[in-house]
């Protein structure tokens, strides 16, 4: 766990995480691109500043818990977990390969440090809510937090709103949810496929404390999490506005990058962009 890194250092971590994501996807030959890239800043902030955990003892009984609800974006979680020391970075290149602990969608029983198994959308939030309920009402451990990330397309799922109602009713104040608001889903723009707005109002009406932030500003992410933890008597949602494919300019804003590129050269180009700060400096390894 972190907490001692400067914002600049955290930004460097996020860049390294993005590089790892592209390498993993290129090597895997399949997978999702846009979501993992645009969630890199949120997960970097969570794993290197916000959450407390022990990569050597993933079952540490005082840890905060992280639930990835949109399991298809798991490359970003694997990348931050490797960066955090849960396992060796070399293992990242086994993503989606036979025998790997890094399954195409996350499986708890395969990899220590994962709290849940997800992929089918909409269920990670309610699992996190189950943890938050337990912490607050049964085990009564007020110093532990449960964080979840959901996609925005995922909010089409009814299960999400069942969980939203549940967390609102029980005022699960140890639950902090980030929504990766990148405005894309497989069939196009979220507002074309199944409009989500007024998203802020929807969550508020379910009894949640709502913040909206720039999901690429690490300082904002950390501040919003602090604010969320300070809220008592309500669960917290942080609508993190993100740019799909963030960090690789030709992938940004393009919903077609939700999935995998047909041309793996695109990943090489993407890596080059990341390593060269968008062409401003010369790449080291190319």
């Amino acid at each position, binding site marked *: 766990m972190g907490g001692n890194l400067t914002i600049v250092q955290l930004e460097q971590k996020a860049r390294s995480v993005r590089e790892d994501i592209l390498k993993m996807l290129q090597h895997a030959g399949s997978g999702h691109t846009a979501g993992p890239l645009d969630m890199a800043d949120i997960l970097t902030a969570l794993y290197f500043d916000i959450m407390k955990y022990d990569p050597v003892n993933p079952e540490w009984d005082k840890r905060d818990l992280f639930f990835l609800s949109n399991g298809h974006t798991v490359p970003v979680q694997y990348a931050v977990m490797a960066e955090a020391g849960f396992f060796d970075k070399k293992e990242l290149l086994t993503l989606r390969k036979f025998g790997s602990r890094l399954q195409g969608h996350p499986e*708890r029983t395969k990899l220590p440090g994962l709290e*849940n198994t997800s*992929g089918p959308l909409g269920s990670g939030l309610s*699992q996190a*809510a189950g*943890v938050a309920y*337990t912490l607050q009402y*049964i085990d009564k451990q007020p110093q532990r937090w449960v964080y979840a990330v959901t996609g925005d397309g995922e909010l089409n799922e009814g*299960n999400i709103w069942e969980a939203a*109602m549940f967390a609102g009713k029980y005022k699960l104040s140890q639950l902090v949810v980030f929504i990766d608001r990148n405005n894309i889903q497989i069939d196009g723009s979220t507002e074309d496929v199944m409009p989500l707005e007024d998203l802020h109002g929807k969550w508020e009406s379910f009894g949640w404390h709502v913040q909206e932030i720039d999901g690429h500003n690490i300082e904002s992410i950390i501040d919003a999490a602090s604010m969320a933890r300070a809220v008592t008597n309500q669960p917290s949602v942080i609508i993190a506005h993100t740019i799909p494919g963030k960090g690789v300019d030709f992938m940004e804003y393009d919903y077609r990058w939700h999935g995998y590129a047909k041309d793996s050269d695109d990943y090489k180009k993407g890596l080059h962009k990341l390593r060269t700060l968008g062409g401003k400096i010369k790449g080291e390894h190319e």
Partner: protein
Amino acid sequence: MKYPLVDNVYADDVASEPTRAGFGRGLKVAGDKNDQVVALCADLTESTQMSKFKEAFPERFVEIGVAEQNLVTVASGMARMGKIPFTTSYAAFSPGRNWEQIRTTIALNDQPVKIVGSHAGVSVGPDGATHQMLEDIALMRVLPNMVVVAPGDSVEAEKATLAIAENGKPSYIRLAREKTPIFSTPDSPFEIGKAYVLREGHDVTLMGTGTMSYQMLVAANELEKHGIHAEVVHVPTIKPLDEKTILASAKKTGRVVTAEEAQIAGGFGGAIAELLTDNLPMPLKRIGMQDRFGESGEPNELLDHFGLTGAKIALAVKEFVENTPQYHRD
């Protein structure tokens, strides 16, 4: 050891009680024994008999509302925290509605959540086909990691609930709404994964699961009058099957009839068909719902209509025995 049956098991005045009542008692005892046991309900607390637990341990009871997807996924999260969550609803809704959540967040995720499906079978009665769950056995037994139990009566349901609280595995318990006869005694054995020979015979084996095992006893008693000596095997655990006991009885009699208050396709009869086909292919007749839905009516009226009473089963078995040779006799 001979399985102890109640003394008046074949009498008209045999005591009866819904299996869900036994579950309610068992859950309360499980809660007494282990403070990690928690209970979640989807707006059917009284009806599923979770109310006893709720009264005893209000701090460990969670009202979920009419939200079955949330029911099992919140439970999965609680299991991640070391809890042993029991979830209840009607079987038509859980696992009927939330099967994928059960598959991903409980079975694949290997969390010891207990899914309790009440009001299974046509004997739900007047509510009609929407509420008469018939596909749950098939749905649940195909899931890796899942244990599937259909207790035979309320006494056994209590024991099964306690056993399932302690088995550390994702598990499904199938319960009935209506009162059904109690054939087992407090001393009768129950162990997950065990089948029990209730009555010995050598002409045919009648295998029942859930409350149909009682009907199989009645059928065997009736068949005796016609000179047919039927063995009755009670199979409360549909997964994992007690292959040894089942195959031993099948080998002894050379003919098998199954009965369940569920679809025979993929259900208990399906499970037995798979086991016999793989190990000891022999004539098999499956009694149950024949690829159709139920309908409104009184429970006994429906059981009779669909051929699920002891009397109707006896007729079907008699015809089967008369027309089918025994196989694999030594």
